């Protein structure tokens, strides 16, 4: 008993039939093979699965694929326009804002949404904004630096 949905992901519209219980993150990873969005937990804590849904950072493990019907999704794969890295991606690279890279797509997407709302944040605001994204590698210091740097260049 599939449901047919139409979802635009990174500018491309996909039509697919999915089980009602399929999570958006599973749809992205397993149906569209966009494996840049990761699954780090089963309790909606870690933020590794964060994507933009109609421009708003959303944990894609908290949403069913059917709820994405008719909406626009941006994943980490869609952030670089024509191969040009987004300023956030550049800043994470330059400031060593990642180590194993597993949390990185989620952290970058969350930061993207945050900087839209707060283009000139303080360190404290950045740390607060990233509360929903766990990183076990970096101790967050260079993530904070990267977000700050990106803010300056955006």
């Amino acid at each position, binding site marked *: 008993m599939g449901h047919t949905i139409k979802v635009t992901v990174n500018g491309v519209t996909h039509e697919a039939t999915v*089980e009602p*219980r399929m999570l958006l993150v599973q749809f992205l990873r397993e149906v569209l093979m966009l494996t840049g969005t990761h699954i780090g937990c089963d309790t909606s804590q870690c933020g590794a699965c964060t994507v933009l849904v109609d421009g708003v950072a959303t944990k894609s493990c908290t949403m069913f694929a059917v709820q994405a019907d008719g909406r626009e999704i941006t*994943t980490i794969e869609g952030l670089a326009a024509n191969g040009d890295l987004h300023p956030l991606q550049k800043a994470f690279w330059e400031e060593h804002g990642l180590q194993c890279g597993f949390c990185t797509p989620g952290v970058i997407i969350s930061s993207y949404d945050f900087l839209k709302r707060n283009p000139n944040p303080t360190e404290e605001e950045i*740390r607060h904004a990233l509360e929903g994204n766990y990183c076990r590698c970096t101790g967050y*210091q260079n993530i904070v630096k990267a977000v700050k740097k990106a803010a300056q260049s955006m």
Partner: protein
Amino acid sequence: MANYIGSSLKRKEDRRFITGKGTYTDDIVLPNMTYAYIVRSPHAHARIKAIHADKALAHPGVVAVFTGKDLQDDGVNPLPTGWQITDSMIEPPHPVVAVDRVRYVGNPVAVVIANSRAAAKDAAELVEVDYEILPAVVDATRAIEKGAPTVHDEAPDNISFTWELGDKAATDDALSKAAHITRLEIVNQRLIPNAMEPRSAIGDYHPARDELTLYTSSQNPHLIRLLMCAFVLGIPEHKVRVVSPDVGGGFGSKIFHYPEEVIVSWASRKLGRPVKWTAERSESFLTDAHGRDHYTVAEMGIDKDGTILALRVNTIANLGAYLSTFAGGIPTWLYGTLLAGQYKYPHIYVQTKGVFTHTTPVDAYRGAGRPEATFVVERLMDTAARELGMDPAELRRKNFIPADAFPYETPVVLTYDSGNYEASLEKAMQIIDYQKWRDEQAKARNQGRLIGIGLSCYIEACGIAPSKVAGAIGVRAGLYEGASIRVHPTGQVTVYTGSHSHGQGHETTFAQIVADGLGVSPENVEVVHGDTAQIPFGMGTYGSRSLAVGGSAIWRAVEKIREKAKKIAAHKLEASEDDIVFEDGKWVVKGTDRALTLGEIALTAYVPHDYPEGLEPGLEENSFYDPANFTFPFGTHIAVVEIDPDTGKVQILRYVAVDDVGNVINPMIVDGQVHGGLAQGIGQALWEGAVYDENGQLLTGSMMDYAIPKADDLPHFEVDRTVTPCPHNPLGVKGAGETGTIASTVCIVNAVVDAVSHLGIKDIPMPLTPERVWRAIHGK
């Protein structure tokens, strides 16, 4: 030619990660793949009376259901442990899937394999297991009491080994004569590693070629292949390829050979189809090997003037239900040997009892034994200073091994290679402005505010390990590292390393070494790791060994390439070999401008028309590097904290880390390693801790209940260095992966206790949650 060694080159590996193009194991999808879901025991201790799989087998999409008996009947052996601690160590069998008894919540009981993840999981719900629930014991101190439930019949008293090191008689004697004894009872609580990528494994068997590929999120693919082939499955190693692609953090938890690696490999051979398993986070909590979990009584004997005379330590280490791969070595050799710290006290005696309980197996977690040792030593130092009315920095200084005493032999078998402890303490005190904070603290106390200053002067042994030593202390492996360098005809270079990067940035650091070593740009150096089919052999990454051992192996291979290149250059430049020098990235005829680059030499080596007589064509070299000694990074960390007396919340006002990791190849990467280590160490001090109820249920089984540090929990770290090169490896490097974790836990605890000591508080058990701190302050 640029000097890449020592520069903060941006990481070569990052492009794929920031664009979402990394390849972690769960990202791999193979044709005709099946999915495994593992039925796990909900009980900490029970007898399996029967398993009914019919309903699960009938579920749509299900391909097979296997139980422990199926594996056993097919000749699958138990998982081995790799470290024998004493001759009489008790090593009960560790079945891949439980056969008749389960011994911890999460113990595999059956495996359901289906065409989709969802079908496998649904069907797993239908597997009925009849259990006879048995009493469980979770606390190691309770497990050794008379009458405690027994985990393994082979060890009726639940003790796997009792290990000791040092001169007991001399230590007892020195303590009995000491003017002052400082005594602490320490619980170093159990931690759950929580690498952000859950473990994952895919077995992919090709019947026609009789070849198996195992993809696994491992820190050491060669070791997994060796253990699985030689011990568990008894299949030929040359027919097995183990690939550890991008791995999302490890921190020790991905060193070990886990049941799931065997399950997917064995099942794929049975079914002739690929089998994938990926942990859900709740499974990670239950089944990734945990860390720490010590109960310790430590006594330090000190004479009147503050000279430390002896240290006696008794530790009960919880090993969990089974001996994981390196389990025994962590609370013994990697712990007891570090109890000299930075100090010259002449007598040390340590005894560790390794104890089975009905809990998840415990093994190495970032620092692995060394944070526990540092905790003991540095808690004692701070406590002793307070009891003696000395400044804690002063007491340490008085007892430091002096800078001119290296190499220094400790009473617990190690020979420290090099150090300058005074220098790192001095620097840290300067950066933080130590005296100012002491004044500040006094002022604050008068105003009823609670400010504390904590020190931690740590030592670490990394670069594990000289194989001879490893053998002597019971490691069932050599701990060298392998490397291979292939210079292509056009002068680009591929480096194959047995180390594995799961965040450490080897693709960059190793490229920097080779770039300088051979006179090429790092862009022209590709580092390959994590694939047994490409890399000759390797022991993997743990214990901060990659650069000191793996990097040294690469350097040896560089030297071999240089040697051969020199012969080719001499021939081409019509000079004697003795006149060729490697300068500015070229092979130059001494005192002339006649020179050849690596590219020119490589082309000659592969198109050897005009070539030295008797020299083999080609330009490729292998090397294995077996270290001469451990390396001994050290440093001083100082933290300033303020406690809110109304809530007990600890705020870190400053955190200064001065580390000495020897020479530094990429400062940016080293700083990043320190930051991450600090976060984990501070996490243990303030928030993290596994909690079991008395029946063995893990109460902290999700990220909702287990507090992983978040961005706004942590301060801005001030990281600095002193540089004392390692004298015994070619790069002069010591290792930087664990310093932060080793030093920071005790540093924070010392600071918090310092903030409240004037209230008569001597100690607060970790984690120092607001509640615990508040209770201590208010005596509730």
